[in-house]
Structures are given as C-alpha cells and as structure tokens.
C-alpha cells in the first residue's frame, strides 16, 4: 500500500508530460486484487492505459473453453505478461527517446560553451560583457535544466523498476505463480534500466558545471546541509523564493526533483510487511556496519521462518 501511495503522489507531482509514461501500477494492482473477477468498472481507472476488462475478457474466453482451474491462471499469466511487455516497450521507447534528446542537447551546450570561449579568446577583452554574462547564465541555466531532467529520467527508470518488482511480487503472491524472478531478470537488461550511458552524461554535465562555475564547489558544504534539511521542511518556502528566478521549466524540474526525493525516502522507510530484502533493512544493515548472525535481521527471520515452516509442514502431506 505504501508504495502505491508514494508512487501515485509522485506521479501527481512530477513533470506533466511524463505522467502517463510511468508504470500503470494501480490498474495492475486492481486487476490482481479482483482476479478472477473483473475489476469494478470505474471511470478513473478506465482512463488508465490498460484495459483491464479486456484482459479479463481474454481470460474468460479462453477459460470457458476449457476446464476451470488450470486455464485461468495461465491465461492471466499470459495477459499479465503481455501487459507488462507493453509497459516495458513504453518505458524503453520513452527512455531511449529522452536519452537521445539529452545527447543532442548536451552536445549543443558544449558547442555553445566552445563558441563563447572562442569569442573571448579572440578579443582581448570581452566583446560585450553583459552579453557574455547573459550567455553564460543561459548556458548555466540550461546545464542545470538538462542535468535535472537527466536525473529525473534516472528516477523514472528506478521507480518503474521498483513498481514492476512490486507488482510482480503481488502477482506471485496472488496467483502462486513464479513470475517475479525470471521477469525481473528480463527487466534488468532492458534499455530503460541500463542507465550507465545516462549516468555518464550526468557526470559530464556536473563536470562542466564545475568547470564553468567553480564557485559552486565552495558553496557545496555549506549549502548541502542547509539543503538537506531545508528541502524537507521548508520546501514550500524555498520554492516560492526560487520560483521567480528559475523560470518555469526549471521550476517544474525543481519541484519534480523534490518529489522524487520524497518518493525515494518513502521507499526507504520500513513498510508494514517485514522484508529483509527491502531497502529499509538493507540500509539499516549498512548503517550498523557489523552484520553478524545475531544482529542481522535474518536472526529474527529464522525464528519466524521456523514457525511458518512448522505451519507448512503440519497440514501438508
């Protein structure tokens, strides 16, 4: 539940153009929840991309031809997999498209930087200082923008991945299937999740910004603390202050960035169901530094596992 909420909140706050490019988590969840019955007709849900009624229709058509029991599960799997495949294609297309844009834009920015450098080198002094600084400011703003968008794209990738894993877990839980692990392996290799080229672009961007505006380095320490607390508590205030400076585009990006941070923090918090493989457990472990058999979450795990196994072994033959 928690993830769904975080996910939806983030969707609402992120860049508008991106909203429908995310995973259709809620509809999928609904599909699973009401399986084997069709999800209730709902105007809001129909606006989402998967036509869950259609999916159910598929499953019922096939299942009516055969015995019940075995077939519906397989049909659901097929439909489910098909939907997920389509989602993957959507992600990939969007991601690769955006990546291409970034490559082009970044290269453009670099060209602009070169041009302006040349201009300065040619003349002894700056041809016109205001123009120069104007242009520099533009370049800087564009660099920050593109950096922001790239990071948001990474967030897009990460969030969708997390959503996929979650929905696959739910699928397995609901239907007793074994879809999660293999499908996840497929997802790991999708273009939208192989973000290394994008990371390199981001680093390049950061490097350029450092070069051009080295004063940022000094400000890093002092502002980073301020930023970390401020954006948690005072983000409304800050955004009010910065709104007029950044321009609309950057403002959107800034807001989405904050939303993404919140979403990530939300994911890191412990959820209602204990899970040693969750971020929270792993991050807790890392904080502790020493993970021994006693104090690892596994030790608690062992006890609970023994109990559950007793349950399993009891009634089952």
């Amino acid at each position: 539940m928690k993830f769904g909420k975080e996910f939806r909140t983030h969707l609402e706050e992120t860049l508008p153009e991106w909203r429908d490019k995310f995973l259709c988590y809620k509809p999928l969840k609904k599909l699973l929840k009401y399986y084997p019955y069709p999800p209730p007709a709902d105007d809001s849900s129909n606006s989402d991309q998967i036509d869950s009624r259609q999916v159910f229709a598929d499953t019922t058509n096939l299942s009516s031809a055969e015995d019940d029991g075995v077939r519906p599960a397989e049909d659901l799997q097929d439909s489910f997999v098909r939907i997920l495949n389509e989602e993957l294609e959507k992600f990939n297309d969007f991601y690769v498209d955006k990546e291409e844009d970034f490559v082009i834009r970044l290269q453009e920015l670099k060209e602009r930087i070169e041009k302006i450098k040349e201009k300065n080198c040619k003349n002894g002094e700056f041809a016109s200082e205001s123009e120069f600084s104007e242009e520099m400011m533009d370049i800087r703003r564009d660099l920050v923008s593109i950096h922001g968008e790239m990071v948001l794209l990474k967030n897009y990738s990460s969030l969708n991945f997390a959503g996929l894993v979650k929905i696959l877990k739910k699928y397995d839980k609901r239907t007793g299937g074994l879809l999660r692990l293999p499908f996840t392996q497929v997802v790991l290799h999708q273009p939208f999740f192989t973000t290394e080229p994008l990371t390199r672009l981001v680093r390049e961007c950061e490097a350029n910004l450092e070069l051009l505006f080295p004063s940022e380095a000094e400000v890093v320490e002092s502002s980073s603390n301020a930023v970390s607390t401020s954006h948690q508590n005072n983000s409304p205030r800050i955004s009010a202050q910065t709104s007029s400076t950044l321009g609309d585009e950057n403002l959107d990006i800034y807001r989405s960035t904050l939303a993404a941070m919140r979403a990530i923090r939300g994911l890191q918090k412990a959820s209602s169901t204990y899970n040693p493989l969750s971020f929270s457990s792993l991050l807790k472990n890392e904080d502790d530094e020493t993970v021994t058999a006693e104090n690892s979450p596994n030790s608690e795990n062992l006890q609970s596992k023994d109990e559950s196994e007793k349950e399993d072994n009891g009634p089952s033959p």
Partner: protein
Amino acid sequence: MEARPVQRSGSRELSNLTRTSSIPSTPNPSSAAAAEVAFMRSENNNNNTQFMSKPLGGQNYHLLASSNGGAVGHICSSSSSGFSTNLHYSSMEKHYASSSSNAAAAAALRDDSSWCSDSLHGGFLDFPENHHQASQIEDGGGIGAAFDDIQKRNDWHEWADHLITDEDPLLSTNWNDLLLETSSQSDSKKTLQVQPQPQIVQQQQPSPSVSVELRPVSTTSSNSNNGNGKARMRWTPELHEAFVEAVNSLGGSERATPKGVLKKMKVEGLTIYHVKSHLQKYRTARYRPEPSETGSSEKKLTPLEHITSLDLKGGMGITEALRLQMEVQKQLHEQLEIQRNLQLRIEEQGKYLQMMFEKQNSGLSKGTASTSDSPSKSEQEDKKISDSKDHLTPEETGKCKEPESPQPKRHKTDN
C-alpha cells in the same frame, strides 16, 4: 507460431527459456538461427575473454566511448524487450519484424536490448580490437559500474544461450528445468563455443577499418523491417558525434539530407529512419538557441525580470537559485545511485538463492523418484532443505526470505 528467427526480433526471451532443448541442438535447422546462436556464443566468448581483466572490461564497455573513429551505436529493437510466453509470440512479432537481422534477433533472444549496447561491443572487439585498444578511454567510475553490470549480463546471457532453439516452446513455462539447465550446462558450453566461432568470423566480416560498425545488424538476413523501421536506435555521444561531423561536412543541419548523412556516416545497421528522426531532433535543438542569441531582447528581458523581482522577493539571485537546484539534483542523483545498486543487489541475491533452491530441489526430486515414498520421508527431506537454507542465510546476511515464498508453493505442487 514458431521458427521465424530471422524476422523475430521480438520478445522471444522467455519463450526461449521454455525451450528446454539446448546446446545439443546447435546445428539449427535454419542457418539464421545458427548464425544467431553462433553469434551469441562468439560474443559470449568475447565477453568472457574481455571481462577477465577489468581494463578490458572497461574497454569493452567503452567501446562506446572510443574515439578511434569507431563511434558505435546500437540498435535496440525495442521488441527485444519483454518477456513472452508463447501465446504472445505472434502478437509481438508483428511489431518488430524489424531491422533485427539474425544477429539482432540474436540480440533479442538475449532478452536484452542492452545486449545491443554492451555485450554486442564484445562482438565488435572481435575485429576492430586492435584499433580500439589503442584508444581506450578511461573513466574510472564508469568502468567499475559498467564492469559489474556487464558481468551480470554476461552470466545471464550464458544461460539464456542454452535455451535457444527453433523448436516450439513448451506451453507450460517450466522455470525449474530452466534454471537447472543453466547450472548444469554452463560447463559444456565453453567447449561448444569454440566450434561456432570460426563460423561467425566468416559470416560476419565487417570491414575492420575505421568505419563505424553496428554489430547486431548484419545484412545477411532478409530484413523485413523496411516497412516498419521501428527498431530503436540508442544514440550514444560517440555516434552522435559522427552524426554531427557528417552533417557539418554536408553543409550544416539545414542543408544536410538524411540520405547524405547516412552515407557519410557509414554505420552499418543505421537506417534512414533513424537518421531522419535524429536529424529532425537535431534541427529543432539547434533552431531555438540561435534565434535566442540574435533575437535577444524579449527573451533576455525575462531573466532580468526574474532577477529584479527576485531581489524584491528574497535576495536569492539566479546563481543562488541555480546552485540550490543543482544541489538538490545532485543529491537526488546520489540517492538514485544508491537505490539502483540496492535494487541490483537484491535481484542478484534473489536469483542466486533461487538457483540454489532449484539445485536442491533437483537433487531432492531425484532422490524421491527412486523410492516409493511415504510422506514422512519427504517431510524429512523438506526439513533437510530448510536446514541447509538456514545454513545459507547466515552466510548471506539474511537475504533469503524472498525466494522462500516460491519454495513452499513448489513443494505443494510436487506433493
């Protein structure tokens, strides 16, 4: 529904996985499939050799970054995304009877479009290796990360390799067998790899010259993609640089034509559709900055307005605001990196433990098959497994709960 590997760039991934026959069927009925398999194996081989040493691994990855005139891009037939069961074979197929040739289909079979981006370049290194070794570009952080990622993909590819045949996939996806085969056959794979390799060398002889290559898309197969042309191209900075050079040599973005650029670039596998769309993007990206420089006034007023209004508002200048924004973005990026690493780790653990369980299961089932069994005995064996699971967990720092959930279910089906 089956056996069209040539066109089939599509999501064959796990429908392939359901095909339990594997290496022994290497002499595939169609030469296309043979090329695929051979291609992949050779790449695997390359990958294996490449990844032995870290720098080479980095080099492999950074083939993308090589500046030896070897700009490399990758065709990622997006249809190669996805995981399909058999029923959807035909539906997927229509999408991307694509530019994927055999080799691209091979890429697709990898269930891995990133195969295009990373592992394929392992294949590249077959030929232009000499060139690129000289021009290795260093990027410490990137290499490390890339290396790890590629290692993982490599493993995955190795086992996916086994399962590619032309036979009809089984309807029931039988993951147990699948994963078992992986582990058992990983040894035999190596020897079998040797044989197809010369074959691939002859088949695909891109000119090892400076000209840019796109490995996966050989021209051998009948590319029925000309209608679709939907294979997604993943534009790397290097490929884009080559593009820009070509455009500039043709007189600029306005005057250059897609056809001319395509010819100039000499990148195998790049279609005119790719170039067209990329050129369009390029033009729009260039168009806006230019007018803003010349057309100055209106545009430049707005930043000034912002500055002045800001001075009134709170004394945070543009630079401050930008700096702040940058800080937040950097933080988010860091968080994302951490999260991504966690995600990868979790999946690795899950996969590893899953395989362990599979192994044990196979051992168990072999044991039970021989004896006409009483439930009590199987209970004991269940206990054995759970005990050994307990053994595992302290070693693994306790990340075994996840694979447990499938485990009891499987037992139920067995019983």
